[in-house]
């Protein structure tokens, strides 16, 4: 990443994040790094660093954040959430940031597939006769897909 020029950044990015459900707490961060210390992903993959992402967002590095690959590495364990002294609620801030990335068409392939599955089947795994026969053999009730509700709600 080349060195940023502050006057070329989008200072309103933090406000955009804060307007998403879950993103409200981002501006309260005072950069103590408790989130990063508690993050199990950061411990094994240095691409992902919660405090760095917050700082980048607060500075207005919208493009660098939304187009990055690292924002997709959060495991949503809520470890950062529990230790934050400022109640930033970073796990939810990450969801807000990912939602903004998707709105800007930065969406990883796997995620679109999940949405398609839900619209087609109302579930992550299709339930066919095979599954239901297996269930029946174990004395379990049949599963019925309600795809129409999901496709209506998600259109």
């Amino acid at each position, binding site marked *: 990443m080349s060195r940023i020029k502050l006057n070329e950044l989008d200072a309103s990015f933090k406000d955009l994040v804060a307007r*998403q*459900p*879950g993103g409200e707490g981002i501006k309260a961060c005072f950069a103590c790094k408790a989130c990063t210390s508690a993050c*199990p*992903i950061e411990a*094994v*993959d240095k691409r*992902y660093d919660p405090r760095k992402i917050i700082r980048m967002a607060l500075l207005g590095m919208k493009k660098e954040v939304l187009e990055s690959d690292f924002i*997709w*590495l*959060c*495991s*949503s*364990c*809520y*470890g950062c*959430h*529990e230790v934050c002294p400022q109640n930033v*609620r970073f*796990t*939810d801030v990450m*969801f*807000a940031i*990912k*939602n903004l990335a*998707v709105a800007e068409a930065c*969406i*990883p392939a*796997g*995620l*679109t597939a*999940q*949405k398609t599955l*839900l619209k087609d089947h*109302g*579930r*992550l*795994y299709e*339930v066919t006769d095979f*599954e239901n026969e*297996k*269930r029946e053999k*174990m*004395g*379990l*009730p049949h*599963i*019925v*897909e*309600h795809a*129409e*509700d*999901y496709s*209506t*709600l*998600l259109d």
Partner: protein
Amino acid sequence: METLLYLGCTVPVRNLNYEVSARLTAQALGITFRDLESFGCCGFPLKSINARDTMVIAARNLALAEREGLEVCGLCNACVGTLTEVAHVLESRPELKEEVNTRLASIGLRYEGPVRVRHYMRLLWEEIGVDAIRTAVKRPLAGVILAPHYGCHYLKPSELTAGFDSPEVPVTLAELILATGAEVVDYPSLKDCCGGGVLGMSEDTANALATKKLKDVAQTAAHALVLVCPFCNVMYEGQQKKIAKKAALDLKVPVVYYPQVLGLALGLSSEELGFKMNRVKPSTVLKIVEG
């Protein structure tokens, strides 16, 4: 007590051993699970794409439960976490509830709330209780040693799990294991995340998290790792072979679901409890219990 059993996507297709053992143990302990055929996905898989969509999908399921006038009991940490969170958010943000209800109207539903959602483990803990479970045990699992794994959304965020268990010092699963007569081992990575949340984005990263726990547990005297979430199962059972190969480790950590363990103690057979579906056989556990 009566509750609506919320199966979610993964359990009824890939973890029938979890489902069948949960149903049998609930029945044995006087919990009536009612099935609601119209339940579908909880909405969690959409949260990274659009958190508002997650709210609408979760609220659909909550509205269906509300119509039945019953609370919801889930088996998956992610389903329980998502439904609980959305019920909580819609309670405190009336404007979001209205937004959600506008969309639910397109399928003829409306959610008023609140609807209570609890994990099956929380029902066992709060409605049955450790003492009653100990009394109900017909075949104490003496000599069986088990390692608990809670999973993140079982304990966090603590504002949703307050009054149940603590993310810093979790006890419920260990206590519920002890109630069966088995021993519990502690290990360094007890509270670690399984990595399942990031599996779809970076398999190496996800596996790195799961590797640590599998190695830790393999070094203890535990005969099996005990789970309560199908997402965690994907990592510890589903990925175990791959992890062992990559790390050149001779890993064979049996992975079981808590209701399977409880079921054995209540006198149910390993066959009834679906043990043949466990990929790494908990042979030592079954040998001690069934001979």
